[in-house]
């Protein structure tokens, strides 16, 4: 094992196994992981069973989803490697120590390859296993399936990391020095467009609709066509599809899966030995000194300057805002799906289905908000870094600090929620009470979730993290995400009964009885009180804990 890997290994051991034994925190994370693993397995099992029970096409349809999942996992891994590769390879603080030492580029490449692989793919590997495992159970593939599936996931992850690193090293060398740090922007833009194209080209909604094809044979052939042989993810999906269907094994695909990661690894090592120094040298030249910014007048308003500071730091850190392209692509795909929903083809009236979807959309919007809060709001306190010391020693109280943070993030998230809900309601042609229910509940959820992100972010703030994106895989971030989702679920369930009664009465005769009005008022009060309590408790916890992790 490379000696350069030792700091990574020791940090990992000290973090999760302090004093040489498993810590209570590690134990909780493990238990949490196991519960999530089982839950994912059960949800996947139910979903695939649903497809299988549809008709004779179910099997082909579920295998198509199997292929798509492999392609998605592979693409996501390449992208996340490229994004973290720029900072891990060229901008890491330890580069100065390592590159000034007599360690060879080969050794450096091995260290970076292993550490980036672990950072970027552990979550994808751990959580794709139950999904792919569920297919094995449904197709009664037996334990031998696991002997092929688990190594296939690892090989795909290894190939994705290899390709990601190789492309990163080449790209950094191609770009002019002062644009090195902005590469992440271009990568995100590229990925946003790619994701949009992949999802739209696959047209998943058409798979469930045979009438869109001129004849049934066309439909069947579009479903049963094996994935393109040029993508490594297809080697894994085609190999396992064969095994799932008739226990046949394509040894050529097995060979490709094993040999290709090694070939890509050695190609990356070769490129690293030749191009790393040029790229690293460029990366050091690019540290922002070339540009002069406009001077603005000073005004002694703490709040105004606090907001300005937050905004400038966000805008000037390309690794932060570049992901907005991705969000933009997701929003477009998200809203487009509402446009292409085949509402008229269902057995129940179209407006009833639209209302059900609008109700479910509150949850989906909440999920997007919670995910984005995990990415942007949760790490925002830790992202102050050593600058947080300035705030602690200043007359700005933690109460005002937390409040300003909350207000700064509440505004854009309010706008995002409104865009998602109002636009999807418009596309679904929602009118009447459901429009108001979705918008009001959505906003209440958003405001509470932003407060929760600030609170959890303060409790689990990591002021020393080199890369705030790495904080996202941490215990605090996962805990926040699940707490936020649980809160959203409870709120949506509370709203469900009056929502159902209101919409039903409105659709029938547009008349609301006294009991409906009383119940609705009661529920509105209940979710308002819950939201206010959640917000206040979260912000209070934030105020109490904001300074504790500093030093």
């Amino acid at each position, binding site marked *: 094992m490379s000696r350069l890997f030792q700091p990574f290994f020791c940090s990992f051991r000290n973090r999760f196994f302090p004093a040489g034994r498993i810590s209570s925190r590690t134990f909780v994370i493990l238990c949490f992981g196991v519960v999530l693993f089982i839950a994912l397995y059960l949800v996947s099992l139910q979903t695939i069973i649903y497809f299988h029970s549809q008709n004779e096409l179910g099997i082909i349809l579920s295998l198509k989803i199997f292929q798509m999942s492999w392609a998605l996992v592979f693409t996501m891994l390449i992208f996340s490697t490229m994004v973290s590769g720029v900072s891990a390879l060229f901008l890491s603080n330890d580069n100065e120590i390592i590159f000034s030492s007599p360690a060879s580029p080969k050794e450096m490449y091995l260290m970076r390859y292993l550490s980036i692989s672990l950072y970027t793919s552990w979550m994808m590997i751990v959580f794709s296993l139950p999904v792919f495992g569920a297919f094995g159970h449904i197709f009664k593939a037996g334990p031998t399936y696991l002997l092929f599936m688990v190594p296939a996931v690892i090989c795909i992850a290894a190939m994705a990391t290899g390709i990601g690193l190789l492309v990163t090293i080449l790209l950094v060398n191609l770009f002019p020095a002062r644009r090195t740090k902005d590469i992440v922007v271009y990568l995100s833009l590229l990925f946003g467009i790619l994701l949009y194209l992949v999802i739209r080209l696959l047209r998943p909604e058409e798979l469930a609709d045979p009438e869109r094809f001129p004849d049934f044979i066309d439909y069947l052939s579009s479903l049963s066509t094996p994935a393109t042989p040029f993508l490594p993810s297809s080697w894994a999906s085609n190999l396992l599809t064969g095994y799932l269907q008739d226990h046949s094994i394509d040894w050529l695909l097995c060979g490709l899966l094993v040999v290709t990661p090694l070939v890509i690894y050695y190609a990356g090592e070769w490129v690293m030995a030749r191009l790393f120094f040029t790229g690293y040298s460029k990366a050091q030249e690019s540290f922002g000194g070339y540009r002069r*910014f406009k*001077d*603005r007048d*000073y005004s*002694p308003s703490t709040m105004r*300057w606090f907001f300005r500071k937050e905004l400038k730091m966000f805008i000037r850190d390309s690794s932060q805002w570049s992901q907005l392209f991705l969000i933009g692509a997701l929003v477009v795909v998200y809203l487009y799906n509402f446009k292409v929903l085949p509402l008229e083809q269902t057995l129940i009236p179209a407006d009833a289905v639209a209302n059900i979807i609008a109700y479910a959309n509150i949850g989906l919007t909440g999920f997007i908000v919670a995910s984005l809060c995990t990415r942007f709001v949760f790490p925002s306190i830790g992202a102050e870094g*050593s600058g947080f010391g*300035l705030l602690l020693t200043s*007359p700005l109280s933690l109460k005002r600090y937390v409040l300003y943070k909350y207000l700064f993030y509440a505004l854009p998230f309010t706008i995002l929620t409104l865009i998602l809900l109002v636009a999807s309601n418009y596309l679904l042609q929602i009118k009447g009470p459901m429009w108001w229910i979705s918008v009001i509940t959505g906003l209440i959820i958003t405001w509470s979730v932003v407060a929760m992100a600030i609170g959890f972010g303060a409790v689990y703030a990591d002021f020393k993290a080199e890369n705030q994106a790495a904080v996202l895989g941490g215990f605090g971030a996962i805990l926040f995400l699940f707490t936020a989702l649980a809160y959203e679920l409870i709120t949506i369930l509370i709203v469900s009964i009056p929502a159902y009664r209101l919409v039903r009465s409105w659709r029938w005769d547009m008349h609301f009885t006294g009991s409906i009005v009383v119940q609705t008022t009661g529920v509105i009060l209940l979710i308002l009180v819950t939201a206010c309590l959640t917000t206040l408790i979260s912000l209070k916890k934030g105020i109490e804990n904001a300074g504790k992790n500093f*030093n």
Partner: protein
Amino acid sequence: MNILEVTDLTKRFGKYKAVDHVSLSVQPGEIYGFLGPNGAGKTTTIKMIAGLLKPDKGSILINGHSLADQPTICKQETGYIPDRPWLYEKLTGMEFLQFIASLYSLEKKRFSSSTQYFLKLFDLHDWKDHLIESYSHGMQQKLIMTSVLMQEQPLLVIDEPMVGLDPKSARLIKEIFKQRAQAGKSIFLSTHSLEIAEELCHRIAIITEGKLRISGDMETLRHEAGKKSSGLEDIFLQLTGAWEMKEIISAIRDQS
């Protein structure tokens, strides 16, 4: 009235007592040096005075206000310069100064005149509209100095003031400190540079293993160390129990 009054200050980290019943006071117009070997508890004490660490026991009064009860007033009257520059690298130097000034509600007129003066003094004027991430370590340290000096607070708490500074800037800083003290401001200064302490400080305290070993002017220190005509280095080594180092140093010299 003392500008800084520390009484019975204690801080533990688990079982380890980092600061052990430390009491000291700083008068108006005084430069107070705070010395000690590595790990003696200097930075922990300073962080408690700056309001970054909560003491387990004891009290800190700044200009008559309790830091525990009135933190905002105390912080308004204290300027803290850490040993490592704490900065927002994505802001320009000027934006950083504006942000800090807004935290302390500095008047517009005073901000303008002070920043112009210090930026020019520290040769940062041409760099004020560039991102801080492009600054050298010394430039970052000078920017932090500017952000504190522009406010003219009655108490400055400084941890290792000369780290990363070039000789010209170090000389300037020393003169500014002296001038500030003459104007009635107080400076609580932690340093490993005994020359700086000897040149600048009216009184010096030495802390070892969390306990205040001694506090007083050079005469008091000489008397306590029993070395009537010695410099601060000899006194420091004597009082911190590192006198045996002298023998090791002579042995190394003999070998070479």
